[in-house]
């Protein structure tokens, strides 16, 4: 046997065109924010990447006022076909600057370059293209002959897919004639600010898009601003509940895309090798920092032993390390607090009697990393089965009958996504009809397409993003 190690194949960090400082984008220009500047780190090294100016209350007021003015005077009245031109231009430049954006995203977020290059940036561009195409066809969206925009949108997005989530909010909002104030996550503001630069280069009228970096206080100021007509939030369930409380009674529209604890149901007649790949992809994609991650594996007892052996063998091949290495499968955990949370929840799994198995892959000596981990012997009552870990940790439960699988899959406060693995079409449909989740994948997982609506049930939020249905949140029908 020949040991064959893949030599490191790092992408050049210089491609990111990293600048020492980044600033908020308000009313068509980059401004010195009035807030305390923050430093954004590279989670793979914990070194400072750049200093980022943050927004003060006044900056927020200015941004909302600019968005209102742009909405009323320019963007709202503009024919859809004209709005489409700007969006197409932005989508095209995102595709053209794909490599730069991918490297920047990987530096700021810690996700493997393979994923930012092959998934995040192309999907972001695809969403912008898709919505650009809707801009002059809104009358055909099934929401009335001439639907109107809702007005000024406040959007707060998470750190797990910084550019993609920005595109998910900006694309439909702008296509439908709204203007937007966007607050990227504290730890990952950079690609949203480059997107603002791209929008400015594309000639987008001032005020149509505003980007306000900052921490939770800036986010709270944005979503609570009474100058908004709609709030769109993607993030944790706790924050989502707070926003919902705050907006209750204001008449402002709200969509929430929150946490999840998705079940991946593997029946004994599944295409086992592909189910293994799907389970791996479901939980280890983006280090498990995915709200729709398949973090609960429900495997039929008759194939449990074989499946788990195949799964562990497959997980052993995952390469954890430098996110800029093109051969890395699992990158860095985005922040120290997030890593601490994963460590704590995994410890709870041990304490409650679940059996922990960890990939033997070596971890880098510095930076924020957590090895791919599987808990077996998990019971429904355990924290690792109930709470969203948001990390590379899989909990494995078993079932004997399809009814039991459904009962266990639905026994969660969440309902964002689910996976079903079977070669039998009728069983897949039977299961899909009973699983309470916004997205149900069969014989695949974590597939995103701008034409497919995405969103949750129960504590995973409400409202849909993407596709024809996704336009509804941004239009007065």
């Amino acid at each position, binding site marked *: 046997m*020949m040991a*064959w*190690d893949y030599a490191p194949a790092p992408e050049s960090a210089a491609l990111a065109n990293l600048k020492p400082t980044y600033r908020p984008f308000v009313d068509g220009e980059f401004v010195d924010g009035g807030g305390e500047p923050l430093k954004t780190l590279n989670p793979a090294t914990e070194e400072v990447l750049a200093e980022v100016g943050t927004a003060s209350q006044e900056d927020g007021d200015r941004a909302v006022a600019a968005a209102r003015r742009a909405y009323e005077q320019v963007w709202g009245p503009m024919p859809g076909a004209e709005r489409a031109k700007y969006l197409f231009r932005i989508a095209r430049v995102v595709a053209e600057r794909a490599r730069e954006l991918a490297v920047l995203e990987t530096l700021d977020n810690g996700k493997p370059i393979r994923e930012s290059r092959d998934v995040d940036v192309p999907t972001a561009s695809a969403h912008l293209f898709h919505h650009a195409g809707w801009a002059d066809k809104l009358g055909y969206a099934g929401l009335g002959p001439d639907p109107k925009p809702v007005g000024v949108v406040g959007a707060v997005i998470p750190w797990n897919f910084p550019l993609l989530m920005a595109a998910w909010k900006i694309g439909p909002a702008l296509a439908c004639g709204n203007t937007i104030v966007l607050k990227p996550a504290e730890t990952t503001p950079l690609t949203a600010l480059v997107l603002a630069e791209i929008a400015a280069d594309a000639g987008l009228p001032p005020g149509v898009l505003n980007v306000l970096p900052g921490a939770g206080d800036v986010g709270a100021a944005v979503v609570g601003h009474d100058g908004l007509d709609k709030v769109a939030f993607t993030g944790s369930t706790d924050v989502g509940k707070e926003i919902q409380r705050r907006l209750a009674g204001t008449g402002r529209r709200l969509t929430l895309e929150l946490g999840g604890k998705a079940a991946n149901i593997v029946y004994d*007649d599944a*295409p086992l090798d*592909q189910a293994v*790949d799907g389970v791996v992809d479901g939980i280890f994609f983006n280090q498990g920092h995915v709200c729709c991650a398949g973090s609960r594996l429900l495997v039929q007892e008759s194939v449990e032993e074989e499946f788990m052996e195949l799964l562990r063998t497959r997980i052993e091949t995952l390469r954890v390390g430098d996110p800029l290495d093109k*051969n890395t499968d699992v990158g860095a955990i985005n922040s120290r607090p997030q890593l601490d949370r994963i460590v704590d929840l995994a410890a709870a799994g041990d304490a409650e009697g679940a059996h922990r198995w960890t990939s033997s892959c070596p971890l880098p000596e510095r930076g924020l990393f957590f090895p791919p981990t599987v808990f077996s012997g998990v019971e429904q009552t355990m924290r690792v089965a109930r709470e969203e870990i948001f990390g590379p940790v899989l909990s494995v439960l078993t079932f004997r009958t399809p009814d039991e699988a459904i009962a266990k899959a639905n026994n969660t406060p969440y309902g964002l996504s689910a996976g079903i693995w079977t070669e039998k079409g009728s069983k897949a449909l039977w299961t899909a009809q009973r699983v309470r989740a916004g997205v149900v994948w069969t*014989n*695949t997982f974590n597939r995103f397409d701008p034409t497919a609506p995405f969103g949750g049930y129960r504590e995973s939020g409400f409202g849909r993003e993407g596709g024809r249905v996704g336009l509804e949140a941004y239009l007065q029908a």
Partner: protein
Amino acid sequence: MTTTVTAPSTAGGRDGRFADAVRDDASLRRFLHGLPGVDHVGVERRAATLATRSIKKESKLQALDMAISMIDLTTLEGADTPGKVRSLCAQARRPDPDHPDVPSVAAVCVYPDLAGVAVEALKGSGVAVAAVATAFPSGRSSRAVKLADTALAIEAGASEIDMVIDRGAFLTGRYGAVYDEIVAVKEACGTAHLKVILETGELAGYDDVRRASWLALLAGADVIKTSTGKVSPAATLPVVQVMLQAVRDWHRATGEHRGVKAAGGIRTAKDSIRHLVAVNEVAGPAWLTPELFRFGASALLGDLLRQRRTQLEGHYADRDHIGGA
């Protein structure tokens, strides 16, 4: 119709673990159709992901040498002559005369009537002689002719036999007939290694590839091979992946290591490295040896040698600086 399958010494695996599965046609069908399905979207997606592995620097040099050592340098043309075979053998021994550290290839693969020429030319080199037999490439002849074809190659000294399966029998569900034939050829091989060509381009999808792989393994194949090289598509990454899963599963079930040969259509170093990545990550690093993984190719060696020189010398080598056969 139920035919009784003859039970040779290797029936159902060398320790008889699968004796029930190969009892008769009906048992074989139940067993093969009871194997887990292959989802074509998933298998192609994994293959595409594996193909994005970036193999550079030392790992590339290592891969190039590994690939060279795994080649069955092949000439299977009606126009083959002893001279052509001798020249191929010379290259097989010493692929790059300017760089004696280049490993020799695994084997030279020829038609049975030329096996003797290759045996003579390769004497003492450690390079094996493989012969395609059994009415290659169509397999359309009587059992007696196929066995005689095999015997011809064995008598000439071939140490490896590449046989084709009867795709007609397989596609009509006569698994017992295919099984019997492999068993019979395996016996005719004696100590020679048997590679069973599934001709996956003529099978109906990945489920069939998995079933044919298992059928061949049950019947005693030492190596399962994708293609004759005469049918397109030949060795695609998803097909090789499914076959690698079959030998991996066979090993899990029996402890035995069986091999895979990717043949046909692999012409570039880049392509061969993608296959090596699949071997490494799907079957496992234990399969990264000429015993357990082969490339069947005629044009691949030239590109591997060129890429090897490029790695060492920092610039692309002229095609004419490398001795082609």
